[in-house]
């Protein structure tokens, strides 16, 4: 009947209209005629199902009668009937996809309610599909997920039946929580979160009472096993072979934590309590925290077969926990256990409930320990739901195992009984052993303290009886933390084995493998919002009551920890230290956190002296790398900018599985530089630079001083594009700039002290506007072999711009009026570049306390010329200056760029040195004698012609022209003025040291006056902190303290 009507209808209006009620009627007819699936009608059925989905969506948006018909004919029941036959994946998949499309696209709320109103959807949910077929599985779980996205306060009642305590959508889905397919697991997690966030009390009560314990205990066990796998991966992969696998496991663990955090962040109090309980009692404490202190526990009770992970892994995982989870009751309790609990929490059953107590005084009957759930989630759920549907009788608990019973079980006694009889006896033995061993190794003093501790822990038992009402705030919890504040510091660490092992891990003598994660953990603990401040003040932050008279300055911070930290810093500054840069950076950050409050440092003098000593050490290491080679300056500036631009992100650090493997030195692993040890001379130099910069920075922070010497380029004094400049009296060279694309413009070239500027004249006479500005140090100049009037100039981006791809700022051909001007320009550029670099090298030398020769004494051009020629001839003769003298003397500013080959240290003799060994002594002598007189140090062969040219120019006044580069004779005085005018004030002091140098011209004596001044300045340093020269002075302090 329908068929003929629809055929008639279709024939009448449109030959084929798939979107009409009539078409649906036709499809209904097909379905009702093909209720049995067979080989022959499969294709037809699938096609029909697809069409139904399409029509229904069309109907939902256009014609409500379509939906009415669908419901009236109860067409969903056909779906069920088809499903119940073993119809194969082909039909099943289409069926599920049709349902997916239906629920995904329906906009009309009433349509949705109608679809859900009869229980068909729930019947489909509980249908046992062939889940071994991955396609069916994927469509099925997507269907559930789609449904979960439709959940809200109204629709929840179609899925959750309060009276029968039935919630198939949720209970069926969570059975796949550990499915091998990651996408399925993600869908399950999405679904659970979508369920939890529906605010429906009775549903949430059902979730908590009937499903939370089974689900969470299984989930926690699943996570724990991932952790064991991760540990095995780390253990068996010292050679970095299965990095991918490890990376996955680490990422997986992060996923778990983020999932747990997402649940906890929904803020469903009851659910969070169950979850927190399980996490603490079944995973975090018995596996993670237990493994921190495993060595001792194992030695004292060899029988103990409890699973564990290596302490490195445990530190790493705990860092992740504290970086991600912020649920206060969870992290605060965990922090307390790590900071204050003793080994007894693992020892016997009577203390087991300590963990329970710690959790905000709420009771739990979960038996602590990392143990597998007694049965699979599916069975637990069945039992739990079965029981509930039958009756709420008392025997229900008998069926439920300890770990699956609800947290608020009505039979705590029953669980206690079963939980402790078998386990308890065994553990008791372990505990006794523990005690005897402990007693053997401790001093009387410690014994006393142990008693004290036991007394303190006595009252712990009390709240257990009154747990119901002790909803105390975490900070007031029944813990060992006394309200007096820094008492924890006074307690010997042996009573706090967990934090003790964290501190012990900070030992970097062999390597910094574990230390890095111990630092991560401490840092994460300190930064976690959920951990109460009371727990951390005095441990990871300065004590908060500085005004209390009874608290001497001594106890303002965690002394033992700071000592460990200072030791790491000191060690890092050793030349061959096995401390990675990332470790040092984190150490420094932690130190400032522990000893500083509101930018005020509480660091004691002894510790401060140690830091200063470390800085001194680091600068002396760096002095060995201070080279004339160009790359040194570039490296120095690059390291500085990287340090400033990319501060360490600890969360990202703990996402990197590479750091979980033992530290390595080779870059072949692909591990970035900061996270491994240096390899080769260049990397060692980079490391030395970075260590110096970081420790210097720390020293400034601790000294509450501001940075004055870095960055080397003071950008505030630089000319910027569009600045209008007074160019009267400056050297201007007119030129045409031809770009790569052929465009050409006329500009004037101005060469400043550190910058090259292309200006365009303005209307005001003698003034110009800067069109392009580049740093002289970044230019490359080459001549043109075909045209003597041309130069090819490339200006690179400054390192400080932080652009990784260094696209040149400008790369162009400069055409000058004639070849003389061209030569002049070239010379100025080349020399300007050398000078700009030299100037910075001098700045670095100052930072490193390398004596900077300032040839202030004589300034006769003739003399300079003469000396320069002498030197030049010496160089031409192929004689190399062997660095046989004390190293310090090698670092003369004059022997900077361009003279790389001329300078060698004794330990790396150049080939020519070896061949001309007889000459060597002579040269050394001559160089020493030259050294004795400061005069010949100034000039350089390159300068000669330049100065000749420059001589005719006049001196330049104080304005911009003062900075014009080719400052002629008298060289030295002008250099000095330009220094004072352009450098930061801290350098002014150098004038005086330079003076003293000139007063006592011989090198050894010239060095000592500087030292004296340092030492004298130290004495007044505290009072006058503005007494400049940030870095250098401190040295004296360390030596005298």
């Amino acid at each position, binding site marked *: 009947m329908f068929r003929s009507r629809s055929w008639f209808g279709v024939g009448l209006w449109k030959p084929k209209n798939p979107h009409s009620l009539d078409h649906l009627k036709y499809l209904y007819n097909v379905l009702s005629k093909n209720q049995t699936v067979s080989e022959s009608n499969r294709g037809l059925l699938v096609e029909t199902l697809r069409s139904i989905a399409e029509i229904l969506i069309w109907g939902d948006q256009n014609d409500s009668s379509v939906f009415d018909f669908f419901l009236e004919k109860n067409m969903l029941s056909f779906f069920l009937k088809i499903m119940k036959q073993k119809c194969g994946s082909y039909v099943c998949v289409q069926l599920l996809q049709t349902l997916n499309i239906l629920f995904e696209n329906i906009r009309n709320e009433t349509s949705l309610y109608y679809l859900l109103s009869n229980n068909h959807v729930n019947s489909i949910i509980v249908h046992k599909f062939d889940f071994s077929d991955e396609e069916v599985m994927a469509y099925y779980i997507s269907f559930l997920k789609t449904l979960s996205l439709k959940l809200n306060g109204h629709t929840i009642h179609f899925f959750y039946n309060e009276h029968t305590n039935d919630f198939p959508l949720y209970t069926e889905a969570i059975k796949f929580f550990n499915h091998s397919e990651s996408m399925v697991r993600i869908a399950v997690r999405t679904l659970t979160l979508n369920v939890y966030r529906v605010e429906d009390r009775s549903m949430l009560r059902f979730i908590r009472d009937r499903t939370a314990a089974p689900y969470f205990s299984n989930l926690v066990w699943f996570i724990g096993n991932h952790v064991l796998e991760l540990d095995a991966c780390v253990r068996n992969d010292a050679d970095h072979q299965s990095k991918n696998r490890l990376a996955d496991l680490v990422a997986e663990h*992060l996923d778990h934590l983020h999932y747990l955090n997402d649940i906890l962040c929904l803020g469903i109090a009851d659910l969070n309590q169950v979850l927190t309980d399980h996490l603490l009692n079944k995973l975090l404490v018995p596996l993670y925290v237990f493994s921190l202190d495993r060595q001792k526990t194992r030695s004292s009770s060899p029988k103990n077969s409890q699973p564990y992970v290596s302490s490195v892994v445990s530190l790493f995982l705990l860092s992740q926990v504290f970086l991600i989870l912020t649920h206060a009751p969870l992290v605060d309790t965990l922090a307390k256990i790590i900071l204050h609990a003793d080994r007894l929490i693992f020892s016997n059953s009577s203390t087991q409930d300590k963990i329970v107590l710690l959790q905000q005084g709420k009771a739990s009957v979960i038996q602590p320990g990392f143990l597998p759930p007694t049965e699979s989630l599916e069975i637990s759920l069945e039992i739990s739901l079965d029981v509930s549907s039958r009756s709420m009788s008392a025997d229900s608990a008998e069926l439920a195992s300890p770990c699956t019973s609800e947290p608020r079980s009505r039979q705590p006694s029953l669980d206690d009984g079963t939980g402790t009889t078998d386990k308890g006896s065994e553990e008791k033995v372990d505990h006794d052993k523990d005690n005897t061993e402990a007693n053997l190794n401790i001093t009387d003093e410690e014994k006393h303290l142990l008693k004290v501790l036991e007394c303190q822990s006595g009252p712990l038992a009390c709240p257990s009886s009154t747990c119901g009402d002790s909803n105390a705030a975490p900070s007031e919890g029944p813990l060992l933390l006394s309200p007096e504040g820094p008492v924890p510091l006074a307690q010997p660490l042996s009573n706090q084995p967990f934090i003790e092992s964290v501190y012990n891990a900070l030992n970097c003598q062999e390597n910094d493998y574990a230390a890095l994660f111990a630092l991560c953990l401490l840092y994460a603990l300190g930064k976690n919002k959920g951990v109460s401040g009371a727990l951390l003040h005095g441990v990871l932050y300065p004590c908060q009551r500085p005004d209390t008279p009874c608290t001497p300055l001594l106890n303002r911070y965690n002394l033992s920890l700071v000592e460990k930290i200072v030791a790491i810093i000191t060690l890092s500054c050793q030349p061959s230290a096995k401390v990675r840069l990332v470790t040092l950076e984190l150490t420094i950050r932690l130190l400032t956190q522990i000893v500083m409050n509101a930018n005020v440092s509480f660091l004691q003098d002894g510790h401060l002296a140690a830091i200063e000593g470390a800085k001194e050490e680091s600068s002396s290491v760096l002095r060995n790398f201070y080279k004339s080679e160009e790359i040194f300056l570039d490296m120095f500036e690059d390291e500085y900018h990287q340090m400033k631009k990319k501060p360490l992100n600890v969360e990202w650090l703990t996402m990197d599985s590479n750091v979980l493997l033992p530290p390595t030195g080779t870059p072949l692993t692909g591990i970035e530089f900061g996270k491994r040890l240096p390899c080769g001379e260049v990397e060692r130099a980079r490391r030395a630079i970075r260590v110096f910069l970081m420790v210097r920075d720390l020293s400034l922070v601790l000294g509450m001083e501001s940075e004055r010497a870095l960055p080397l380029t003071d950008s505030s004094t630089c000319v910027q594009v569009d600045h209008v400049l007074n160019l009267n009296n400056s050297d201007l060279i007119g030129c045409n700039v031809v770009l790569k694309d052929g465009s050409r413009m006329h500009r004037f070239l101005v060469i400043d002290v550190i910058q090259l500027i292309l200006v365009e004249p303005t209307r005001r006479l003698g003034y110009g506007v800067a069109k392009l500005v580049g740093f002289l140090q970044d230019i490359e100049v080459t001549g043109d072999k075909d045209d003597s009037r041309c130069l090819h100039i490339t200006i690179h981006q400054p390192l400080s711009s932080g652009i990784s791809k260094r696209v040149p700022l400008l790369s162009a051909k400069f055409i000058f009026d004639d070849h003389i001007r061209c030569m002049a320009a070239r010379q100025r550029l080349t020399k300007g570049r050398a000078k700009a670099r030299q100037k910075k090298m001098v700045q670095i030398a100052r930072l490193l306390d390398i004596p900077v020769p300032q040839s202030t004494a004589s300034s006769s051009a003739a003399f300079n010329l003469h000396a320069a020629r002498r030197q030049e001839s010496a160089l031409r003769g192929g004689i190399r200056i062997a660095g046989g003298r004390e190293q310090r003397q090698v670092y003369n500013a004059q022997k900077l760029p361009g003279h790389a080959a001329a300078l060698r240290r004794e330990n790396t003799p150049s080939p020519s040195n070896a061949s001309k060994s007889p000459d060597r002594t002579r040269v050394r002598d001559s160089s020493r004698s030259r050294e004795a007189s400061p005069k010949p140090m100034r000039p350089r062969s390159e300068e000669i012609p330049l100065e000749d040219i420059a001589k005719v120019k006049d001196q330049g006044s104080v304005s911009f022209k003062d900075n014009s580069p080719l400052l002629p004779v008298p060289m030295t005085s002008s250099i000095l003025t330009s220094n004072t005018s352009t450098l930061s004030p801290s350098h002014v002091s150098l004038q005086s040291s330079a003076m003293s140098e000139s007063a006592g011209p011989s090198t050894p004596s010239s060095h000592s006056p500087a030292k004296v001044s340092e030492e004298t300045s130290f004495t007044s340093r505290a009072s006058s902190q503005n007494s400049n020269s940030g870095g250098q002075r401190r040295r004296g302090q360390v030596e005298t303290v």
Partner: protein
Amino acid sequence: MSYAYLFKYIIIGDTGVGKSCLLLQFTDKRFQPVHDLTIGVEFGARMITIDGKQIKLQIWDTAGQEAFRSITRSYYRGAAGALLVYDITRRETFNHLTTWLEDARQHSNSNMVIMLIGNKSDLESRREVKKEEGEAFAHEHGLIFMETSAKTAANVEEAFINTAKEIYEKIQEGVFDINNEANGIKVGPQHSPTNPSLSPNGQDRGQGGGCC
């Protein structure tokens, strides 16, 4: 149905850019909405052929799950390819690409192939984002780019298949570790190295009934 490889894709982008429509259009071609019907789906699978090999694509839409950090994280990690979709008629969906891309780069494995898709190319009259802009963005970030229309099905096949080709090439080059399923790539049953000559038919029957 048996396959040589299974690639998992995710589709990301702002809401309303037509992600689920693209997905449905690709996996079930019959929904060519001549009539004005927007219809989408969150999951779909389809078999394609590349280089004579059967490759199954599984596409997961991540819509509606942005509220949970753990979910987006996990999705990214489990995928071998991602379609990053914006709507050419809504400038803001284009502006948000950077955020999406950062997210993707942060959470996904480094080899994930990302294709940028400017959807709704049929609505030329309402275009707000020029094709050149999409191209430039893709070029800058090393993505493949295409403009598609889920409505007219223009370029939809190509978008999914080109992404698959890229992944396939990476497998051939050995960039992807195919033994690691966490990468979003699965090796099909007949590709098991132990018995490559095994006829897939036997397994086929067992799994998927009447696929013929």
